[in-house]
């Protein structure tokens, strides 16, 4: 199978993730969309590694996973802190500061 197809899939997933970040209102869902973008990137890395015949891309995928895990720890702690003080995780309600 032509590996370029995986690139198209990766671009599609990345776009879905980016659109989700911009459109969804729940902070957790927004965050999941960011994770989808990172995983789409992983797919692109692995595909390019296959196309170039070197391992760099696969190794980067591991790095991305670790970084994404660290991001989950930090992100969820912030979202939980917000939820406990406001009883909502909607990004629309976080509007004390404007302009």
């Amino acid at each position, binding site marked *: 199978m032509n590996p370029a197809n995986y*690139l198209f899939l*990766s671009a599609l997933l*990345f776009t879905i*993730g*980016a659109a989700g*970040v911009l459109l969804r209102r729940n*902070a957790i869902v*927004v*965050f999941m969309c*960011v994770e989808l*973008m*990172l995983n*789409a*990137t992983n797919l*692109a*890395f692995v*595909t*390019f590694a296959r*196309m*170039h*015949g*070197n*391992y*760099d*891309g696969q190794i*980067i995928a591991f*790095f*991305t996973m670790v*970084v994404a895990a*660290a*991001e989950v720890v*930090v*992100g969820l*702690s*912030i*979202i939980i*802190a*917000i939820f*406990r*003080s*406001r009883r909502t995780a909607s*990004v629309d309600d*976080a*509007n*004390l*500061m404007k*302009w």
Partner: protein
Amino acid sequence: MSEGLQLAVEKIDTPTIEYAELAPMLIVFGVAVAGVLVEAFVPRKARYATHLVLALGGMAAAFAAVVALAGEQEVAAVGAVAVDGPSLFLQGTLLLLGIVSVMLIAERRLEHGGDAFAPQAAAAPGSEAEKEATAANLHQTEVFPLTMFALGGMLLFPASNDLLTMFVALEVMSLPLYLLCGLARRRRMLSQEAALKYFLLGAFSSAFFLFGVAMLYGYSGSLKLDRIAVATGGAMDNDALLLIGMAMVAVGLLFKVGAVPFHSWTPDVYQGAPTPITGFMAAATKVAAFGALLRFFYVAMPGMKWDWRPVMVGVAIVTMIAGAVIAITQTDVKRMLAYSSVAHAGFILTGMLAANEAGASSTLFYLVAYGFVTLGAFAVVTLVRDAGGEATHLSRWAGLGRRSPLLAGVFALFLLAFAGIPLTSGFTGKFAVFQAAADGGAGSLVIVGVLCSAIAAFFYVRVIVLMFFSEPRADGPTVVVPSVLTTAAIALGVAVTVVLGILPQPVLDLADKASLFVH
């Protein structure tokens, strides 16, 4: 399948790591890890002093290591880290800014014996648990290791010689900062909101950065900046990958420097974060991110100059105009300084866009000048207080010059430096970047830059007028006398601002010598 098996049996050589060349970063990361252990094992009473000694000592040692390495032009850690002029110059700057920031973070005389951070960040604002923690006079000291991790990432960011290292450094620098933003003692809802906004937008932009890295890897088959530069020189078949990759990496980096149209987080985060952290973020993040931006465009993309330059010129122009114009309408000191930092990002981009050696050296100089002024200005903001904490609304600052001439005078000096008035570091910096841009053939940028400086001068001078030529209010804020830590930080800011304004030549020469990137 057979291809994969052949690759699997290749022998892997043990990589050589040049520990001496990496010493500044290793020391700072070591201190950060030691800080975590201090949190775990040292009794609560002794933690503050231990952290302070560790952090300041570590940064001083790392600075000494940078000085000892001066003049190196090498690639270390199997091509992952570049130890060259710009890296070392920026690392030295970052370490000095880090020392000043830690002094501000450690200040405990302003809040009746507390620091600027929540006694218990996990307790919801206004809850019983929070009241108990405040009554028990709890102090958290995790800010020190978090700051050191962020600083370590910042040291690595401008020095990273491949895109994977750059991405990891970006995250190591950002993740602690997201948390630090949410730790303010006062106005905790604002602070948590700042952390949420910074985190979501930061994660979004780093996903873009990473996808850009994937595209560039797909284009060139390598992550090393110099290999990518070589690949862009040859006539390759698929330019789309290169252009998309370059644009997306640039988006990630421009977000970190706070350039329009990726600046929307700046005012909210600067306003909501605890003020010492705002100072650290405003000064050090900008230095690190501009270092990485310079390295990416100067080392990896010099062959694409005619593609990225027009776009970046547009970004710089919009950044300068938007920053200067929106800052006029602000009524909060911290937000005004945030928009002023957006405008300054535009001025620094002007230097970068000269795309010659003078461009790099003038940008380096501007970053030093800007970093110290910013930290000093935010340090002053921490001192003007009333019953609700810091009095950041501009109307509260009316007549401050009559009540506390020294403090208002110092703040006026910083504002004049922001505005670029002669005999301050801001003038020298602006002169250097505009001259470099004019020589580099970016005349339009210089014209817009000078006009925007004039607009910006208006709102800086307006604050000075407000402080010195209006009546103080009866219920106005008081100026708290800080401990030696904040005093020293402000004094250092004043000294650097004046010295770089009157005698800039030594630092200009140093930046000149340091402007050569290793390839």
